[in-house]
């Protein structure tokens, strides 16, 4: 009897105690507003799940994401996420299948509550990244500006180009080489055939070749890219042909040396000290070897005209060469020397681009100062 009473007592206490604990550790609410959507602007390899943040006192310590495929069983696909997360990008989806998701809230007591399951979605790749629209618009506008200016220039409109210091020296250098009966050394740098600096350099080279053709001054071009070498050969041959001196063209003067940066520098240095050219042109893109070439050229007393858009090498050319075309001046020089409407027109187009940049910077400064950030947002980086 007594036993029974005690048991009853104990049981009552237990029930009361349990009720109490339940009342205090109230079951957390299930994550609400759970959505699953195809991640925008990707290649169709992920789905983004979002949900509302749990209230601060809800006792939620983290979330887990569960997924099914083609209405099958639900399985955990994430490790435990932090309690302040409200978004998960599932990158492990199976392509071609539809997936539905459940967000599981986990509480201190290691209990958990599941949300309702989302609609099943399938991931798709997008053909156009909407975040890159500003980039796309800018590209189209700039292309239009360039093409429009080239068109204008071709239809005979005069285009002014400011004097570029150093270009007068081109004729002087060629003249001196002719007088002294020495050769001219021309390096197009390390760039490949699609580099802008290389193309600009080749255009200037063609102009130099036109002038040397008449004087029969040897024009030596050691190259470090076989493709560039081949294009240079064609261009120089053409220049000699147009000047009516195809007989003066010697293919052996334009040759491949090596692709290795410093072996190229060693080779060109060797040519410089042995052949003692009267003029050295270093035009194109250069790397650390710039100063090795320019100082050796200086030591043999050649007139040196350099030009590069590799901004790191500019200081060395400025220090060691007689004239240096700085950055964009190299591109402008090819237009200036060749007087070709296409190049002049596109130079004008680039200047339009600069006007837009001025406007963007000045406007941006004032807008940012007044707390409006849409210029920086427009320029925001997207991956």
């Amino acid at each position, binding site marked *: 009897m007594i036993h029974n009473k005690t048991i009853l007592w104990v049981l009552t206490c237990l029930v009361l105690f349990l009720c109490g604990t339940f009342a205090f550790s109230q079951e957390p609410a299930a994550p609400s507003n759970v959505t699953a959507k195809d991640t925008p602007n990707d290649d169709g390899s992920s789905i983004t799940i979002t949900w509302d943040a749990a209230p601060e006192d809800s006792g939620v310590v983290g979330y887990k994401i569960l997924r099914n495929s083609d209405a099958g069983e639900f399985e955990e696909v994430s490790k435990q996420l932090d309690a302040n997360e409200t978004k998960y990008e599932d990158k492990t989806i199976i392509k071609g299948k539809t997936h539905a998701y459940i967000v599981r809230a986990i509480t201190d007591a290691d209990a958990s509550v599941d949300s309702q399951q989302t609609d099943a979605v399938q991931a798709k790749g997008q053909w156009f990244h909407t975040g890159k629209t500003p980039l796309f618009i800018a590209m189209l506008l*700039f292309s239009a500006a360039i093409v429009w200016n080239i068109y204008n220039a071709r239809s005979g409109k005069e285009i002014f180009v400011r004097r570029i210091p150093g270009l007068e020296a081109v004729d002087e250098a060629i003249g001196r080489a002719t007088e002294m009966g020495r050769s001219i050394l021309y390096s197009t740098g390390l760039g490949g055939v699609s580099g802008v600096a290389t193309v600009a350099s080749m255009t200037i080279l063609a102009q130099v070749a036109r002038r040397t053709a008449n004087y029969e001054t040897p024009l030596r071009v050691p190259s470090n890219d076989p493709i560039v*070498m081949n294009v240079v050969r064609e*261009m120089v041959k053409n220049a000699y042909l147009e000047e009516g001196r195809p007989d003066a063209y010697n293919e052996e003067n334009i040759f491949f040396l090596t692709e290795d940066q410093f072996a190229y520098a060693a080779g060109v240095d060797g040519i410089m000290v042995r052949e003692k050219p009267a003029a050295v042109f270093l035009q194109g893109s250069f790397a650390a070897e710039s100063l090795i070439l320019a100082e050796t050229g200086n030591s043999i007393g050649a007139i040196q005209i350099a030009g590069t*858009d590799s901004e790191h090498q500019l200081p060395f050319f400025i220090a060691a060469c007689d004239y240096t075309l700085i950055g*964009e001046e190299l*591109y402008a020089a090819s237009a200036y020397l060749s007087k070709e409407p296409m190049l002049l027109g596109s130079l004008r187009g680039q200047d339009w681009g600069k006007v837009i940049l001025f406007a963007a910077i000045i406007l941006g400064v004032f807008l940012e100062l007044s707390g409006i950030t849409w210029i920086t947002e427009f320029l925001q980086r997207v991956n």
Partner: protein
Amino acid sequence: MKRQVPLVLCFLFGVVMCFTQFSPHQYSQAVYNEVINWALIMAPFALIFGTITLIQTHVTRIRRRIEHWQYSFVVFAGLLTMAFIGILFGPQDPAFEWLFNNVQVPLDATMFSLLAFLIASAAFRAFRARTFEATLLLIAAMIVLIGNVPVGDLIWNTVLSWLPWDNGASETRQWILGNPNLSARRGIILGVSLGVISQAIRLILGIERSYIGGGD
């Protein structure tokens, strides 16, 4: 065939590659990844072609006994040794690695280190306060030069110890690099980038044809 086809190819590849940069779709990414590799696949062919012309040049030198023709044999010896061992046994071959480490690496590093000498001689000759611009160049160069080593601050803290400003050399250096230097670089980069893009547009649209020998 000689002119039109290359122009069309250039246009096609240009437009397609440009498009892949805007399109995250898996198909366009697959095209991008495939075509990027093509450049790597074609490189050896271009190089072998280049090497053939290099050999031609040196054969001519030897045949005509042009001054220093004997050294052309050295070129052949180096070229054949490396190419022979490398192509037959691969770049992981111990003999190839030994040659690379004991011949090519020291040559490369030594050529590179010549710059330490040349930078000194160039500085001595070029850094003269001839004009206002040259003076700016000179002063900026000297401040950064000396601010780069602890000696700079040592001198500053002893000679200018009466100033309430310690370690001025390295701090001025940092300010110059972070401010006027950066804005000049930005200016150059912006200008150059406009040039790069405009040239790329000209190439793709077939307006710039210098690479097929110029002319129309």
